[in-house]
């Protein structure tokens, strides 16, 4: 049995201590595993991700990455973790090249390794010609590509991806998924939050289905079918069954 890379245990939290958004969440992400985090709008997917990244402080529960917690070892915790946000966060004063250089510098990636990784990534995502462009000239999709490139440049142990397909063209989505699979095969654990259920069903190994901040179902597709009592159902059917009815 593989040891967990990310372990979330009894996590409760949100934007205020008095009104938690997520309640008692427990799940794991193992090396070489892609976990799909799914749920309706407002189910708590982004809040869960913010808690893991340390943007929000949990009310209770524990988050461990490779045995470390953010409080005990913040630098070690973040060193092997990469994040692709739903909204691209860019520095207006940096070119694409400088965004990548800054990321590599922060994570201590030597210049030769940086160059080696950068070239194929830029080629793959059709951004080579735009290497010296500033973000104000980028389309929404290009801005999202900067986020994708920065995360892939790191080749992290754990990759947290929040709705990465928004704004990307079909070819970029294809290359993104191709890269995610490649990283997964190399042992990277991936937590993927998405609404594109067909893609999640095809690429993810296990799922965490959130409903109103609580885990409604979790496990492999087969396990979720059993939990929902829907044999042979697709992820879409399970999702509609579990998350579709208000207040159930």
């Amino acid at each position: 049995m593989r040891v967990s890379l990310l372990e979330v245990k009894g996590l409760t939290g949100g934007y205020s201590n008095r009104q938690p958004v997520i309640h008692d969440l427990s799940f794991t992400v193992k090396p070489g595993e892609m976990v799909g985090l799914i749920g309706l709008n407002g189910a708590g997917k982004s809040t869960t991700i913010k808690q893991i990244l340390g943007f929000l402080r949990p009310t209770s529960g524990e988050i461990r990455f490779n045995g470390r917690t953010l409080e005990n070892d913040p630098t070690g915790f973040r060193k092997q973790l990469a994040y692709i946000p739903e909204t691209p966060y860019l520095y207006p004063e940096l070119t694409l090249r400088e965004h990548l250089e800054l990321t590599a510098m922060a994570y201590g990636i030597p210049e030769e390794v940086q160059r080696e990784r950068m070239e194929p990534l830029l080629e793959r995502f059709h951004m080579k010609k735009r290497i010296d462009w500033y973000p104000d000239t980028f389309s929404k999709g290009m801005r999202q590509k900067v986020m994708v490139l920065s995360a892939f440049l790191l080749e992290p142990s754990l990759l947290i991806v929040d709705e990465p397909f928004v704004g990307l063209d079909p070819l970029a989505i294809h290359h993104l998924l191709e890269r995610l699979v490649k990283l997964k095969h190399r042992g990277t654990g991936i937590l993927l939050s998405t609404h594109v259920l067909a893609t999640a069903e095809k690429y993810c190994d296990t799922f965490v289905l959130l409903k109103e901040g609580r885990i409604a179902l979790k496990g492999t597709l087969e396990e979720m079918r059993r939990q929902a009592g829907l044999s042979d159902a697709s992820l879409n059917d399970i999702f509609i069954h579990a998350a579709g009815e208000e207040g159930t």
Partner: protein
Amino acid sequence: MRPIESLFLERMKHAWKKGGRYAALIAKGLHFLPIFLLISLYFGYKWLLAELPEDFPVSLLLTVLFTWTLSSTRIRTYVQKADPVFLFPDLDGLKGYFRRSLIYSAAMQSLKIWLVTVFLSPLYLTRVGEVAGLGSAWALLTLLKIWNIGIVWLEIHREDRRGVHAFLRWGTNGLITWWLFSGQWFGWPLVIGGIWLGWLTLHHIRFRSPRHLIPWETLMRWEERTVSAYYRLANQFIDVPHIGNDVTPRPVFSLLFRRLPSRPENTYLFLYLRTFFRYREPFGVFVRLTLVTAVLLACLPAAGWFSAFILLTGLYVTGIQLPWIRRIHRYQPWFRLYPLPEKQKRTDCSRLAFWLLGAQSSLALLPQYWAWNSPLPFLLPILLLGWGAAWFLSWIYLPRRLHKRSSLR
């Protein structure tokens, strides 16, 4: 009144209320400083009028100052990002909205002309002319200012050759102001000036774009710049949450950027360097204050303590702008994700501030002829004082000030 037309008045009132609240907060923290500044200004001005050499070109100085005041014309529209979507369907309403904006801008800019005229009146009355002449000049300058507002409005509706249009307007203002202050009231210059103004106005009207094409992008950029300028001013005294700013690539500094080795210890410095050199401000403030300090050091009496006071004031006023370089990134999620020690955010900012302030003291002092030729070796001690102040401001004073005023550590 149509709803969109009344929207301008609502936004204007809201902006004034907000400005008033900021002014009250600033006034609370300033104590007696404004009174001190006014007294200094009064005595400084009096001294300047008494000491000004007989052959000093006052007319030229007035021409430069008024050309600047006339030409740097801003139109306040209070437009917001959602306006192109929500206001666009009512073109007639928008016409009324922008008419009000132009009337308001004309009133505010005329007030600016009046204030500058009042400020410069002692100089004018001492060296150039009488009260009647000053009154006529003020009236003419006000009319010229209103003309500038109309032309600027037409200019921003045209995408082509903006530089040429701005040059023509600045030139026109310069020539008319020079004629005004050189004492030639009537005759051919006035006729030629009138014809030229008429031709330029007709030229812009002839080539203006169709009414439905509203230059939203330009208007929003201008609005953001104006608001940012107010916020930056307020930010010198109180904590202001959001300050907008433009990015300019400035490729001339690329060589400097490349000298920084790619090491985790330099991560924030890598970013801060680009933040400083590529944002319009505080780089612009740095350049202007370096020039002002150098000019004051060159023009005012070269007494040891007085020169040191000017240098230290210049460094202090520049220094208090610099923590912005770090503060602008405080809501960036990457800033919280980088696997780097927390204190590095502060130390990298201090490293940059030290070199910038040190460079400023060198740039202000090295061209000073008197410091090199002084009977005592004055340049070295004052240079050391400048670098010492740069060290104190960047490593001790500014981090403490930043810590006191915000949650940043």
